[in-house]
């Protein structure tokens, strides 16, 4: 039965992603099971089995082959999607760079999970953070609704800028938590994503092309430069697609989201589901008279440099939350990029980094409030004594 009106549904994050994929109706999906992504692909496989999509589902024998098959399918001209987590993304690593280097608009859900060792199946951002230099656009979701919305927008973004897009959702917290999701009518999604139009297709046998040629000292650098330029100029398209999506869904999507930020002096910067927790913490802190605010990063690649600079420019103290340990010995990956971006400002806020929630360690409202209380002391002291901290760890 086709969905004809907007509907509220009780869906897990995984189901929301699968439902978006059903409405997108991609040509090819190649995937391999891994916790916590499994439910997503199981749900989608049932849509295939029930004839609700036209998709060729390629149930490959590894994630390396999943991404390889996606490269082949996307080069062939097919609208191509996949999904993975953690070790699966790690196994894809080699091919992630090939997908972006060949400028193939593959869309992938990444159900974020910790990397082994020690082995752990729960949510953190180590997997996608490690892929931050792989040339994929990264969209991050706060809840199941955003997973659904981001995935639909990702198809348009990828195909317009010729770059692959990963849509991130926190393992278990979002992937397995049931929420109310407002879904769009089938035809609205179909019309929004349209048909994939590609100027070059491997399957256009009358116009043969060579894809993936050896590229040596005399051309490699120009090709990388043009790839970087595509990433640099992707932001206007991401924002344009967000605006158009707002037109059909009524939900606003920008590169970043400011929550009670305008008049805030103390700011937490975060990705993913923690932003929801932070919003509740901020509401409580405002009651206590603390001028707290949140800067949520939705688009991590391309990095929203200008937006972050203008959002944090006048603030007193900023805590950057990293749900991944960069092993640099001086803080997590998000912290480094945020701090680097603040360097140009005349009045720089004081910055502190918190590594938190590794391997699915729970983050409660109280934890975020503790971070803000720390920011109060930092602002009062006028300096940061130790900028690289852990939150919620036994030491």
């Amino acid at each position: 039965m086709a969905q004809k009106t907007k509907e509220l549904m009780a869906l897990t994050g995984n189901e929301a992603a699968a439902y978006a994929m059903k409405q997108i109706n991609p040509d090819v999906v190649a995937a391999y099971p891994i916790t916590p992504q499994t439910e997503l692909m199981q749900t989608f496989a049932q849509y295939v089995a029930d004839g609700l999509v036209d998709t060729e589902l390629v149930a490959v024998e590894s994630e390396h082959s999943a991404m390889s098959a996606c490269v082949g399918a996307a080069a062939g001209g097919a609208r191509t999607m996949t999904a993975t987590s953690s070790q699966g993304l790690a196994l894809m690593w080699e091919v992630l760079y090939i997908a972006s280097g060949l400028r193939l608009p593959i869309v992938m859900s990444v159900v974020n999970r910790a990397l082994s060792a020690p082995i752990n199946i729960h949510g953190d951002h180590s997997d996608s953070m490690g892929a931050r230099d792989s040339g994929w656009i990264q969209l991050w979701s706060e809840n199941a609704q955003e997973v659904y919305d981001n995935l639909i927008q990702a198809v348009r973004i990828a195909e317009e800028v010729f770059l692959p897009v990963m849509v991130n959702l926190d393992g278990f917290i979002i992937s397995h938590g049931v929420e109310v999701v407002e879904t769009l009518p089938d035809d609205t999604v179909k019309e929004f994503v349209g048909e994939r139009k590609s100027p070059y297709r491997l399957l256009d046998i009358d116009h043969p092309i060579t894809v993936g040629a050896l590229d040596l000292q005399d051309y490699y650098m120009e090709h990388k430069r043009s790839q970087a330029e595509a990433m640099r100029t992707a932001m206007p398209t991401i924002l344009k697609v967000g605006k158009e999506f707002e037109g059909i869904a009524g939900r606003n999507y920008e590169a970043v989201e400011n929550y009670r930020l305008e008049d805030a002096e103390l700011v937490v910067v975060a990705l993913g589901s923690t932003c929801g927790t932070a919003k509740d913490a901020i509401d409580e802190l405002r009651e206590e008279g603390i001028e707290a605010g949140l800067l949520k990063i939705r688009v991590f690649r391309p990095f929203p440099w200008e937006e972050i600079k203008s959002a944090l420019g006048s603030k007193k103290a900023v805590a950057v939350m990293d749900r991944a340990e960069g092993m640099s010995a001086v803080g997590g990956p998000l912290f480094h990029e945020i701090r680097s971006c603040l360097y140009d400002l005349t009045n720089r806020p004081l910055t502190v980094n918190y590594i938190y929630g590794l391997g699915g360690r729970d983050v409660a409202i109280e934890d975020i409030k503790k971070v803000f209380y720390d920011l109060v002391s930092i602002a009062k002291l006028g300096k940061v004594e130790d900028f690289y901290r852990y939150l919620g760890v036994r030491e």
Partner: protein
Amino acid sequence: MARLRDLAKKHSPLTSGHRACSGCAFPQVARQVLLAAEEPVVVVVATGCMEVATTIFPYTAWCVPWLHCAFENAASTLSGVESAYRALKKRGVIDREIRFIAFGGDGGTYDIGLQALSGALERGHRMLYVCYDNQAYMNTGIQRSGATPTYAHTTTSPVGKVIPGKLERRKDLTEIVVAHDIPYVAQSTPAHWNDLVTKVQKALAVDGPSFINVLQPCRLGWNFEADMAIELARLAADTCVWPLYEVVNGEYRLTYRPREKKPVEQWLKLQGRFRHLFLPENRHLIDEIQAETDRKWEKLLKKCGLA
């Protein structure tokens, strides 16, 4: 049965001017395979000699749609292309018959690409995988692979004062593929053009996966004169080191039986990688290779119902 006269009239999808070594046999393998195809083809090539020598940007020697992804994933990459074809055909975007061919060297097929190959075969994609087997990692400078024969000298199984080259046996990939129970599996060489072309046509005609393992003498790695590649491929069949056979829906058939089975020594002595075997103290190693070749040949004859 293909006719040389007809094949010669066809436009070669692999142009001259590529950068393969003089005396290399992979261009013959690629040309014979592609000339055999009646329908248009899309080609995926694994990282290796064939890829680096034919596509240095901004040039390409390929007149057919061609994709290179990585080393170990020619089979899975092509399975994606073939899936895209089926999806786009279903949607009416494509209405022509297209065939799908992957080429991988022995390193990319026997070793690092074995899993991707096995997966693609099990999934039943309609595609032909051609392994151009030159029996070592030639592109990186002659390192041993699972396909390297016993006692061959390579840079990672060098002949030394105490070790006479590679000590282990060669992996029998063709038999591994046969175990997947796919419709068509074969072995051939570029010296037996009619055998190879016929096998490619049979492979492309089956509605499912097919695999052909083609021995490709490598001038650099095997260390022979530039005009000897085809002769060495012929001798490999005549000594039964590389038997020509096919397995159609599980049924074995010998496609070439040498009138007179030549001693392996004749094949070994033309190659620098086996030079050490001809020292008097190593005579027993040649005997050992002969015994192993005989054993495998007898086993194959039995499978073909000829013993």
